[in-house]
């Protein structure tokens, strides 16, 4: 029995539910890649700046949180989109 026939035997709703779950995983996983790298860059460079100039740590920290917030938004869009997707 071929794979296609196996699939055809299934309840059609079941296949859709499974593909929806896979799609959700791909959406959130894909959306998390870029922001992960981005937040790493933001925080790493902020730590470098704080280590070089400890007296400006306050400004750097504020800017770092801003940068994190802007970068993180993309991952959160993916997170919300993953819930919006329905089969």
């Amino acid at each position, binding site marked *: 029995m071929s794979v296609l026939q196996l699939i055809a035997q299934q309840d059609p709703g079941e296949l859709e539910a499974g593909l929806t779950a896979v799609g959700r995983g791909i959406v959130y996983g894909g959306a998390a890649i870029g922001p992960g790298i981005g937040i790493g860059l933001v925080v790493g460079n902020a730590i470098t700046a704080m280590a070089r100039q400890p007296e400006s740590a*306050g*400004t750097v920290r*504020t800017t770092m*949180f*801003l940068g*994190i*917030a*802007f970068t*993180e*938004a993309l991952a*959160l*869009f993916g*997170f*919300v989109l993953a*819930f919006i997707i329905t089969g």
Partner: protein
Amino acid sequence: MNVLALEFPSISHLTNWPEIAFGLNKVGLIYIFATVATLSIFLIGGSKKQMVPRGIQNIAESGVEFVREQVIMQTIGPDGLAFLPVLTTMFFFIFFSNITEVLPGVQFPANARFGIPLVLALMVWAIYWIVGFIKQGPLHYLKNATVPPGVPKAILPLVALIEFLQILIVRPFSQAVRLFANMLAGHLILVTFGVLCAALFALQWYVVLLPPTFVLLVFLTAFEVLVSFLQAFIFTILTAVYIGSSTHPEH
């Protein structure tokens, strides 16, 4: 071996709450609590005005000072002090409606529903448009906001369109989604580990997995306290940045 076949509650089961009384559900009650807590901190704290602050007055004063020094002075500057009341209230309101996430017996962050974050973001949207219109005038505000300095003429239309969409849609939407999604994600993580701990609590071999899971749950709860504070701070500081971009155009 039913560890992996864990019965995880569906997302609607976790966020839709039944009505308790007077058309209010748990989320509404949490918002009323947050409003009352914010009001009472500043009303009680401001009623005595002691030279050496104690108790609630201490909390109110350190909150105001935190918003003034860490948020306004870092982003808008001295002429942004007019926005100190609205930013402080916003900070405390968001913090109180977030911190119920780890409050035993409540354990739901009210901002994990999209309504109030959206309203707050639209309020911020209205504030920075009105401030921009008053401080710079409508045409100057639109020109300063959409035409960044030093952009080559060839790509100027594209940049202007993007910047215009930014102040029109992207800012309020991303601000609301950021608060909402962070709190929802935190709540889901805590629920996941709570359900896992409950499922592992049995006289089977897999009970050895319970201690690390429970320790992780405790650490994540502590982490969510940090996230509750941080999201209130980030929402406030982004509001300040948006107001700052309306008061001082980039030359």
